[in-house]
């Protein structure tokens, strides 16, 4: 038997379950229990479900798949009851001219725009749909939409296709729109991570619906209520970091005991994301819980700045932490993080924690898959 409490429609839910769902949403958007009635009335009083269009540019469709596989909210509740999704290339029945008509109609209904994938700004022919380039579609959809949300690392920062030498000139939607020839005052909410987390999207949409404004954003356009904390701060292995218990190489005793992954390349100390809180697969697990060091996928330019993914954080070129140019205020934040970390690690080294059990092992050879 399927879990009927989870797949019940919002409007058909018992009052108790509906209020439960609203408190869940309140937690997501960082509001306290007093906000629950406010959220409930915002959802109930919405005369019609908020229309949403979801476009795909240069992307792998992973964010779409993540949404379709989300367990909380159940996609059936989300797609049939909470939002009115009018256009989503990967999941829509219509195709060709019918699909284009759906996009147009939904935008006329006052849709929010969720963008997946990067804009091919250096090679317009590298991304077209319906004969239009990603630049044309981005400007057109942005100007007609009620609000814009970029989901996933491609749409926010360009992701791997924007790493050196960036052959197609790929860039995030917000960065493209604010750039030359775009829309200077464009406001795009960035929800990075690879893939983008469905809870981030639901939380942001609910926030906009309840508060009738965009959430507070950090220097990189990410909502602070979701991206205000480092992975390091909410990490379930943090206790082992404090205790100086580190995995030295994959498969060692520390791995089995789920110790801190810092020495095998975890980028949690410089990555802002709520992975430790809302996890993946119905909050079952996430990279670090599975023994995989964080690659920093929620930060700008992590492919170039954070590689190799299996080596320690101090190898990151600090001047370009998170790809933020030195001239911007963002550097202040990144710099503070780096400085904070420096002090943190000096403290650790002095107290002998970092080098417990001898100097750091050479971890570079442990992921090559061969037998020693």
């Amino acid at each position, binding site marked *: 038997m399927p879990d009927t409490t989870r797949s019940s429609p919002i409007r*058909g839910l018992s009052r108790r379950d509906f209020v439960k769902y609203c408190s869940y949403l309140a937690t997501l958007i960082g509001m306290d229990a007093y906000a629950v009635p406010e959220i409930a009335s915002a959802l109930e009083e919405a005369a019609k479900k908020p229309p949403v269009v979801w476009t795909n540019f240069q992307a*792998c469709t992973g964010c779409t798949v993540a949404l379709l596989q989300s367990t909380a909210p159940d996609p059936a509740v989300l797609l*049939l009851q909470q939002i009115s999704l009018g256009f989503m290339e990967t999941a829509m029945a*219509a195709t060709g001219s019918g699909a284009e008509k*759906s996009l147009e109609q*939904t935008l006329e209904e006052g849709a929010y725009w969720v963008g997946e994938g990067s804009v091919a700004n250096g090679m317009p022919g590298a991304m077209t*749909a319906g004969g239009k380039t990603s630049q044309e579609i981005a400007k057109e959809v942005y100007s007609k939409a009620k609000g814009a949300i970029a989901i996933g690392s491609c749409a926010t920062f360009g992701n791997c*296709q924007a790493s050196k030498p960036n*052959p197609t000139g790929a860039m995030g939607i917000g960065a493209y729109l604010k750039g030359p020839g775009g829309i200077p005052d464009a406001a795009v909410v960035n929800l990075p991570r690879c893939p983008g987390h469905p809870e981030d999207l639901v939380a942001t949409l609910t926030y906009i619906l309840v508060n009738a404004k965009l959430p507070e954003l950090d220097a990189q356009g990410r909502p602070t209520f979701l991206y205000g904390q480092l992975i390091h701060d909410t990490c379930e292995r943090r206790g082992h970091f404090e205790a100086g218990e580190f995995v030295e190489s994959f498969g060692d005793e520390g791995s089995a005991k789920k110790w801190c992954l810092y020495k095998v390349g975890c980028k949690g100390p410089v990555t802002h994301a709520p992975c430790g809180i809302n996890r993946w697969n119905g909050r079952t697990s996430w990279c670090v819980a599975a023994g995989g060091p964080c690659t920093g996928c929620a930060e700008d330019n992590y492919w170039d700045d954070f*590689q190799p993914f299996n080596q320690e954080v101090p190898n990151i070129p600090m001047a370009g932490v998170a790809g933020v140019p030195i001239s911007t205020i963002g550097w202040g934040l990144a710099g503070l993080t780096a400085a904070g970390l420096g002090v943190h690690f000096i403290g650790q080294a002095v107290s002998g924690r970092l080098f417990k059990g001898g100097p750091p092992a050479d971890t570079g050879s442990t992921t090559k898959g061969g037998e020693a």
Partner: protein
Amino acid sequence: MAKVVIDPFTRIEGHLRITCQVENGKVTDAWNTCTMFRGFEIFMRDRAPEQAWHYAMRICGVCPTPHGIDAVTATEKAMGVERVPDNARLIRNMLNASMTGYDHILWFYQLNAFDYVNIPNALKAKTTDPELLALQEQLKAVATSGQTDIFVSNMFWDNPG
């Protein structure tokens, strides 16, 4: 002779444009165009080989695992690794098997089924199953809301072919 263009071609990973040449109601020739390029072959150059799978998995978000495992296998071959540890082999097989299971469901029900199943027809279905009735109610609300929806709007239902 007429030409029919289908673009965007939906329910696939990525982007596609199909051009058909039609004569007397029959397709006599057809061309497909991939309308999205990212350049994996270019930006994966000069990276550490053991990092390749991180990139390869981003080729396709519908089927990331085989891309990742194949990148690992290719890297191992290039490095002359003849045998991987048994646990590695087992984990890879489990990943591939679970991937096949989930991917088949996604591919068939979400990407393919709309070509064979007329969704709005479900409104006429006669059933007593309470769950199906609840689903029918939801679908009815969607279909009669006047809002554009991915499940019911603008599809060429019931292909005569």
